[in-house]
């Protein structure tokens, strides 16, 4: 096992910069998820670690060794592809044994390793089949098996679950997490699905437009997003944003949207002082807005009124799509709340959990 370090890594295709100045230290045995919308450069970053794309500038180190000019076959890395990329002319056994054969392992050891890995993944009964005779989930397992049978230094996963149906995806998600624990492997995992990122990663690197926005543990990312993009990308449904100004009167700070005025808790006042009378973005997560009759112990709650547009019951909770003033927002309320459409509803906003972002560079203020 090994660590992976990216130093000032750039990738340009002709004149297009697709990855810009990425710095990332992936520790030994760590599970790091690269997440972001499509086209954000996360797959390209992964492919540069794999050696499938050349690095335009910057350095990549694996296990302390600079690998910029090391071909993929000598990097001792395994990769699971989005479309599995199983060799169609080989059986499952041959698919898994291929990498070991190339490395000239003795036949007996190849057989032992393939059988052991097949046992772990529950694909022992499929070894004689060709990929076309497998279901999507089985192909996925074989692709994972082909990667782990070699016991490489680093595992790379490129959106491996995106072709599976929802239920299978959740199942494989936990299985890959378990696998990570039992293999004690360094894993770099690319996905566009923030739920996958949150549930699987030790740390998450959020990318946008080729740049890393923030690298942090899942809950830290959720609680302390570095900027408006990360705040909006992580969490489902996403954070609500309202644009307005910070105002101070009588020693009290407030966020003023025009039609709506929300008091800013004392704890945030200091950080927001330089932003007095300036434009900011106010962010609040759906679960920090609730119905007035919910029995929440919120110290800094503030009541607002908003119009219900859509009611989305999920069983365990209900999402309300509402508008107040100029802005639509989503509230996550208890399942028993079932308001009529187009009625006005009083809601509580937990201001202690408010986020504020600069309007200029969208960085988090507090």
């Amino acid at each position, binding site marked *: 096992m090994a660590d992976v370090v990216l130093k000032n890594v750039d990738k340009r295709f002709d004149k297009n910069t697709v990855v810009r100045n990425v710095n990332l230290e992936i520790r030994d045995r760590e599970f790091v998820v690269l997440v972001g919308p499509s086209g954000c450069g996360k797959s390209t970053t992964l492919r540069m670690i*794999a*050696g*499938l794309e050349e690095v335009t500038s910057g350095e990549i180190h694996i296990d302390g060794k600079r690998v910029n000019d090391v*071909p*993929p*076959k000598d990097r001792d*890395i*395994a*990769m699971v*592809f*989005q*479309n*599995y*990329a*199983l*060799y*169609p*002319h080989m059986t499952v056994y041959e698919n898994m044994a*291929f*990498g070991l054969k*190339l*490395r000239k392992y003795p036949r007996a050891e190849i057989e032992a390793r393939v059988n052991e890995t097949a046992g772990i993944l529950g694909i022992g009964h499929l070894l004689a089949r*060709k*990929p*076309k*005779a*497998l279901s*999507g989930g089985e*192909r996925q397992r074989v692709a994972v098996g*082909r990667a782990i049978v*070699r016991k490489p230094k680093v595992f790379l996963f490129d959106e491996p679950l995106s*072709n599976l149906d929802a239920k299978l995806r959740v199942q494989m998600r936990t299985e890959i997490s378990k696998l990570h624990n039992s293999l004690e492997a360094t894993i770099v995992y690319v996905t566009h699905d923030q739920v996958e990122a949150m549930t699987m990663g030790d740390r998450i690197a959020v990318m946008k437009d080729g740049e890393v926005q923030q690298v942090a543990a899942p809950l830290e990312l959720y609680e302390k997003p570095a900027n408006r993009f990360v705040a909006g990308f992580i969490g489902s449904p996403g954070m609500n944003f309202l644009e307005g100004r910070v105002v101070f009167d009588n020693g009290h700070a407030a966020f003023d949207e025009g039609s709506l005025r929300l008091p800013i808790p004392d704890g945030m006042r200091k950080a927001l002082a330089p932003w007095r009378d300036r434009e900011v973005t106010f962010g609040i997560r759906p679960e920090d807005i609730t119905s007035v009759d919910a029995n929440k112990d919120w110290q800094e709650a503030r009541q607002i009124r908003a119009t219900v547009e859509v009611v989305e019951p999920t069983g365990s909770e209900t999402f309300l799509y509402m508008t107040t003033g100029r802005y639509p927002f989503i509230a996550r309320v208890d399942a028993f709340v079932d308001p009529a459409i187009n009625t006005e509803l009083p809601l509580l906003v937990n201001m202690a959990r408010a986020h504020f972002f600069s309007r200029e560079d969208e960085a988090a203020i507090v």
Partner: protein
Amino acid sequence: MSTWNYVIYPVLLGYLVIVVYPMAWLLYTSLKTDREIFLAPFTLPDWADLQWINFSRAWTVGQFGDYFLNSAMLTVLTVILSLLFAAMAAYALSRFRFFGARPLFFFFLAGLMVPLQLAIVPLFFQMKDLMLLNSRLGLLLVYIAFGMPFAIFILAGFFKSLPSGLHESALMDGAGELRAFWHIMLPLAKPALVTVGIFAFLGTWNEFFMAFMFLSGENAESLRTLPLGLANITIVSQYRSDWGMAFAGLVLMMLPTMAVYALLQRQVTKGITVGALKG
């Protein structure tokens, strides 16, 4: 069965007869005596007295045995070598970006557009200067070269269509470019290789013009291929009629072609990448 079938089946049946009847006629005529052939060209042979001897005479007296071996040797080598070289060239031209890749590809394609008849005279003199006239090696080289444009055209298109994930997967598994080509990409190109192989086989096996041009020396009689031999027999037959033997020779020449069709046709249509990627 829809009404459409009532129309299409008779049409297809008619087509079948047009295609199959001449071959059947050829087959049974090869078992008749010359006298039978001329008196009743379309009747079936006398089942009690089939002229199997036509075949043994064609093989020995007509020298079809020698021609057959010459043709077989040339054809096998042409198919194998042109597939190998074309596959390597097509792979490089279709999957790697390097300076001059596109002009080179079009240079190969241009070969498809040059009629053989135009090239034959300069080629003849070039072969003569290289001392490659009246030699099997010379003819082999020409066959391989003329087979390349078509083979590269088909194979390059096929290699391009193969998912790059498989190639990358092989690299990640620890293969260099050569192994990735040999163990993964080449086996995956099997349908295209079979297609190209069949065309190379047919083209070479039936090829007359170039063989006639380059093996026409006096001392090259022992090097003649089947089409040349067949032409020779027909010429001779004008004076000393031996049509039974000529037909037997034709059948001998036809058999490998039909065998190839029968054995490999399914391979051509069978897509091998099914199941490699997401359903």
